[in-house]
C-alpha cells in the first residue's frame, strides 16, 4: 500500500495505491488523521485510481474519516474507484454519503 496526501486549492487528495486491508489500515488511518489534524481544506478526495483491492476493513476506515470530517463540514469525494472496489463501495452504501467523481 502506498499513500500520498496532497493539499492544493483548498482540496485535500489522498491517493491510495495497492491493496487496502487489515494489514495496512492502521497506518493509512494514522497518516490521514495526522494530515487532517494540521491542515485546512474544504473538500477531501480519496483517489482510488490505483487501488486494486479493498475489503470491509476499508469501508470501516472510510466511515471513520467521514464521521471526523463531518464535524468540520468537509465533504468527502471518491474518485476513480475501479471495478471491484467500486462495487464494494456501492454495496456498502458509501456513495450515499460520499460523492462519486471521476
Amino acid at each position, binding site marked *: 500500500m502506498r499513500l500520498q496526501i496532497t493539499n492544493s486549492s483548498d482540496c485535500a487528495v489522498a491517493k491510495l495505491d495497492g*491493496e487496502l*486491508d*487489515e*494489514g495496512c489500515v492502521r497506518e493509512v*488511518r494514522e497518516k490521514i488523521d495526522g494530515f487532517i489534524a494540521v491542515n485546512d481544506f474544504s473538500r477531501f478526495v480519496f483517489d482510488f485510481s490505483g487501488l486494486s*483491492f479493498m*475489503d*470491509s*476493513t476499508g*469501508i*470501516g*476506515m472510510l*466511515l*471513520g474519516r467521514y464521521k471526523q470530517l463531518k464535524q468540520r463540514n468537509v465533504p468527502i469525494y471518491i474518485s476513480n474507484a475501479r*471495478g*471491484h472496489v467500486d462495487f*464494494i463501495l456501492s*454495496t*456498502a452504501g458509501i456513495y450515499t454519503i460520499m460523492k462519486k467523481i471521476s
Partner: protein
Amino acid sequence: MNEFKLKLLSKIGNESFARSCISAFCLELNPTLEEINDIKTAVSEAVTNCIVHAYSGEEDKYIDISVRLEGQKAEIIIEDKGCGIDDVDKAIQPFFTTKPDQERSGMGFTLIKTFMDKVDIISQKDEGTRVIMQKEFKKE
C-alpha cells in the same frame, strides 16, 4: 477434483497471503477476473474475522483453511478455534459489529454472502467458528 489445505497463524497480514494463495489455486477452473476478485474478497473477510474477532489479536493461534475444487465448483472452508459467535443471525446483519470502537464496518459477512453462491456459518461459543463458502465458476 483437487484439494488444498493451509494452516496459518492468526497474524495481521496473513489475510493478504490467504486470499492470494486461494485465488491462485482456483485458477485451474479458469475463473474470470471478477470471479477471482469475489474469491479474494470473501477469503479476506473470513480470515480477517478470525484474526480480529475470533482470536482478538492473539497472533499465536491457528486458522485452518481448505479448498476443494470439483467440476466448476470451489468449496472453501475457513475455521478457527476462537471465541465463537454469540448470535450468528445477528452477526450476518449488515452494519452489525461488536467492535464499533475499532472502526469496524460490520459489512464482512454481507460481502461474503454477496460474492459467494452459498455460505454456511457454524459457530460454538468458546469453541470456534467454521465458515463454509461455495462458488461455481461460469463455463467459458
